């Protein structure tokens, strides 16, 4: 699985960073980006989905 933050949609609600700091970080403007090129280890797949399903702007894309 891979995750990607669509920076044109992300408005910096920081839900992803709060729920899955192993997978996402935020810059000083609060905008999120994926860590490790977006590669999601198997044990973090549920967290990745949780983050994506909590993003108010529908900005997180998951590729299985």
């Amino acid at each position, binding site marked *: 699985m891979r995750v990607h933050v669509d920076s044109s949609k992300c408005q910096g609600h920081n839900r992803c960073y709060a729920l899955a700091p192993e997978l996402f970080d*935020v810059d000083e403007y609060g905008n999120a980006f994926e860590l490790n090129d977006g590669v999601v280890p198997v044990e973090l797949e549920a967290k990745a989905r949780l983050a994506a399903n*909590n993003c*108010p702007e529908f900005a997180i894309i998951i590729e299985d």
Partner: protein
Amino acid sequence: MTTVYGPVTDWATDFDHGDPEYNKNIHQIWETLKASGCPIAHTERYGGTWLPLTHEMVHEIAYDTDHFTSRNVVVGQLKPSQVEGAIPAPIGGAPPITSDPPFHAGARRLLLPAFSPKKIDPLRSKMEKMCNDLIDKMGDREHVDAALEYSQHIPVLIIAEMLGLPLEDADKFRGWVNLVLGNIGDERNEDRMAQFMEFDAYLHKHIADHVENPRDDLISFLLDSEMDGHKLLPEHVQGTVLLILIAGIDTTWSGIGSSLWHLATNAVDRRRLVENPEMIPQAVEEFLRAYAPVTMARLVREDVEFHGVQMKEEDWVLLPFPAANRDEAQFENADTVDIDREENRHAAFGLGIHRCIGSNLARLELNVAVETFLKRFPDFELNGSEEVTWSTGQVRGPRTLPFRVLSRS
């Protein structure tokens, strides 16, 4: 108290979000409006106002800054074109909330770093102390007011300190917040205008003092900031100071108050959070969804058809994020407050380019306030003999919370 238009008799055709009944019975009123077959309600009040009630429509309007301007985000009797001396678009009176693209992005960008998670998280211990001090002050009384003695103080003290305004003026700030957000529709009232002038003079004085004596706070930061290679205009600095002061107080106070109201009236949730404090962050998100404090507004830029209705230039459009958060099409069992809800894409902090700049700060305040209250008062309930009162206007939350403390620690 009613609005200048008098009490509402028919919510379906003549709603008024400024009528005290609105915030008190908000969920039934939305049901009535939706059941009348009209997902986008209309009233002639305030010179024509629309109220869309689905997540889809709220999302669409928030994103469509071409047709819907943020020139003024609080519905009133007067439209910006009728207000003498109003600061014109794209800056507006309180940038960036009253700004539209392209000006908006720059005005917002300069504020963001001060409110990023990494700047805000270190404030936690200060907030914990503040919450504990407020509870200490209650002594060992059985009857306390969790709104008047607790929730209303937390955001004011934090924001005044961040801006660099005297903490002793907290009562004044709350008065001015109520002036801007609470007494809607009565703009021609002379007493109200006099209070606005006093507020304006107060901000002016403190900003001038920061020009003379710069310090390490947000006002000095704004005075020092540049946009496109120029210092900010004085009206921009003052508008932003006003915005941060107003936006951070009533809203967070309401969020803390609604969360505590829920816990006072739901013994099971209260007990679960006392026993499992690690569940608090998820519960707070659910309280933000179900009791979202903030409804914003937009003005129609020019005549437009929207989902089958004809909107006219300068009509108001309310942007009820709280109703979007209760839309069944977006949230399963939307009307059930469920602290186990894991997937929660709520819009309490807005959608699109105006996403709340203070959301990281507000979330931390909410979490610390709920955590500390439950730690010190593991059991409490509403004191049934006194009434809970709710705010009026676009920010919704309890203004009094008479509680009976059942246990302390």
